[in-house]
């Protein structure tokens, strides 16, 4: 019995139901889109309009497939690899390659299959729902029928409700095989080769190349069309239409490339790439509409309305960018003040250490040597004693300088990186420490140093104050940030506003990171620093 009902308490069951409900919606949208899209595309198949239509269809199918991949990943737990994006390829090459793109056909197949695969399990659930609620229907609905049998009283509906419960259990067990099939389908049809990882330089080169190809092909098309027009000596200059359309096709990516290549352009737009692109694209669209207006009527200046709308959108975007900027400035001012104060305290400490330590020792050393020099002839024994003293002084000065240097930047961190430096810290600890480091590439030096000091300081606190019996250090990567976490089983009660932790927090925040301290009285204590690596 418990095995029979077990799926009812499993999260996977509810996730699968959610998946099929969402799949039903996506499938319906996709079905309508594919029917309408292909009909229109086929109607215009022999005109040049087929190229933008195909591109539009490709983009829409890609987006819907992405949504499906997200659903599959989140609700069914399959790792669907996102296929390589076609971003950065030009208009013409994209248009001509749509039909040969195997991913395009696979994605369409998956979109079309969404509806039936979602309907099968959901129909079972709907039927079960109807049966279970049949006593209510029978009471309130006149002439209510189940399976062509009229049910008119509460009592006569009860067997149907029982059958509904049985059907519900059956449907829940049916979900497993359905989900397995959907997983298999997604991994066959949605998963694609993610393509090579391209360096920023490569992407730039590809974008520029695509733009050049687009400009050249478009110019050729225009030249051919104008030649046809001239040869047929028509009165109406119809090639203006493809000219306008192609100006749009070249103008928009052209502007995007300009913004990305020349940072000074986006500096004019509050330093935001997206805002600069939006303004430029809006301007190109306005020019296109004014062109259309000029070619057609010259009457009522209707492009003013879309222009106003685009201006409004750009204004809203600018306000958002501006607000965010103001917030960021505030934050930067605060963290910079923190960083400056950390640095100031550090420098003062170093200065004091040097002054009272190594410097004083060197002065004493010089004095000992000077006195030894004088005594050398008259009292060689005394001179030897003084020189021995000088040697001790020199060694002590070196020791102090070494400790100082370690506090500024530990040498092993420079030499071998975070993993080795933390392993060295752990090896020296009198308390058992486990270290797990899962970081692929070496993070930036400043991040590494901050992470090291967070770990070193927290480790020292755990040993010194918390009386911990075991400590776990975890270094990992999450969402572009380096995460350093130190957990101990000590007595807790660490004060986040204490000197040490405030200093650490300022260090972390200066790098736009966050430091979180969880240390209830009685323990355990967890200190977690997240440091963005961008």
């Amino acid at each position, binding site marked *: 019995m418990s095995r029979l009902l077990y799926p009812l308490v499993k999260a996977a069951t509810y996730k699968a139901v959610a998946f099929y409900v969402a799949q039903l919606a996506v499938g319906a949208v996709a079905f309508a889109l594919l029917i309408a899209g292909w009909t229109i595309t086929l109607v215009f198949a022999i005109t040049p309009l087929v190229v933008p239509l195909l591109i539009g269809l490709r983009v829409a199918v890609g987006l819907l497939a992405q949504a499906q991949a997200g659903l599959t990943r989140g609700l069914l737990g399959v790792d669907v690899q996102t296929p390589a994006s076609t971003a950065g390829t030009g208009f013409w090459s994209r248009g001509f390659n749509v039909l040969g793109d195997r991913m395009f056909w696979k994605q369409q197949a998956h979109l079309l299959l969404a509806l039936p695969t979602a309907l099968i399990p959901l129909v079972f659930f709907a039927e079960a729902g109807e049966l279970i609620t049949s006593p209510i229907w029978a009471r309130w609905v006149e002439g209510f029928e189940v399976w062509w049998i009229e049910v008119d009283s509460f009592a006569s509906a009860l067997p149907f409700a029982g059958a509904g419960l049985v059907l519900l259990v059956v449907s829940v067990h049916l979900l497993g095989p359905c989900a397995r099939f959907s997983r298999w389908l997604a991994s066959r049809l949605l998963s694609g080769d993610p393509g090579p990882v391209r360096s920023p330089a490569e992407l730039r080169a590809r974008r520029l190349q695509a733009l050049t190809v687009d400009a050249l092909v478009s110019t050729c098309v225009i030249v051919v069309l104008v030649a046809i027009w001239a040869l047929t000596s028509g009165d109406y200059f119809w090639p203006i239409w493809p000219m306008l359309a192609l100006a749009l096709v070249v103008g928009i990516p052209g502007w995007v490339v300009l913004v990305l290549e020349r940072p000074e352009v986006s500096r004019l737009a509050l330093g935001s790439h997206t805002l600069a692109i939006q303004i430029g694209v809006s301007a190109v669209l306005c020019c296109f509409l004014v062109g259309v207006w000029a070619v057609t009527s010259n009457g009522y200046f209707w492009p003013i309305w879309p222009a106003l709308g685009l201006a409004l959108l750009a204004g809203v975007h600018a306000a958002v960018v501006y607000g965010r900027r103001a917030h960021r400035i505030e934050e930067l001012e605060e963290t910079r003040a923190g960083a400056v104060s950390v640095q100031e305290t550090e420098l003062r400490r170093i200065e004091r250490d040097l002054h009272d330590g190594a410097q004083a020792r060197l002065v004493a050393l010089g004095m000992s040597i000077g006195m030894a020099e004088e005594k050398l002839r008259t009292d060689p024994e005394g001179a030897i004693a003084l020189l021995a003293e000088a040697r001790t002084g020199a060694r002590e000065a070196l020791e102090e300088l070494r400790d100082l240097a370690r506090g500024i930047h530990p040498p092993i961190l420079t030499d*071998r990186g975070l993993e080795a430096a933390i392993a060295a810290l752990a090896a020296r600890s*009198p308390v058992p420490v486990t270290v797990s480091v899962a970081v692929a590439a070496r993070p930036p030096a400043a991040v590494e140093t901050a992470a090291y000091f967070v770990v070193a300081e927290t480790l020292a606190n755990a040993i010194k104050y918390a009386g911990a019996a075991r400590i776990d250090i975890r270094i990992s990567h999450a969402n572009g940030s380096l995460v350093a976490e130190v957990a101990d089983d000590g007595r807790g009660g660490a004060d986040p506003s204490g000197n040490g932790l405030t200093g650490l927090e300022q260090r972390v925040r200066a790098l736009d990171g966050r430091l979180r301290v969880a240390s209830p009285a009685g323990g355990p204590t967890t200190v977690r620093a997240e440091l963005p690596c961008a």
Partner: protein
Amino acid sequence: MRVVIAEDLALLRDGLTRLLRDNGFDVVAAVEEGNALLRVIATEKPDIAIVDIRLPPTFRDEGVRAALEARRRSPGTAILVVSQYVEQTYATELLADGRGGVGYLLKDRIMDVADFVDAVRRVAEGGTALDPEVVSQLFSRRRDGPLERLTPRELEVLGLMAEGRSNTGIARALVLTVGAVEKHIARILDKLDLPPAESDHRRVLAVLTYVQDQPPS
């Protein structure tokens, strides 16, 4: 005894050369970086190479890498690594081949000329010389390997062995008789399951166990 030196700071290079020559060593070459060191080790076949850890071009751990490479190319090359700081990690790496002829000292120790010269000779002859600082780093940590079996006194003796002291030296440092030290050492070697072999080699293996806190492989 023929010595080569790899040290990028001219002041220290010249000082070290002078100090070694005054003490009867034959300094056959003094170079500035790791690749040059590998070349002179190959051509000069010195009895010992004294190497700084931080060397050009990156000023990280070139010295350790060059030392390991030199020992890989001609096993048994005696190397004494000197540095402004010591790390147990490097000591472990240097000792890992279990052949001896390895030293790792703070530059501070050069000031105690007699001790330093002793250490150079000892390493050249196949012994070890670990800086007391490394030994004290190892001392503070917890132990879960074979070292757990040792008594605190035996650990102390093993630490001094790692520094490279002779039985007489250990006896003097711990105020014991040489006989007592020998007994301790015999027990340590026994507890670490070191096979009876030529005594110098066993000492090196004991030190390696000490540094790694793992049975010698």
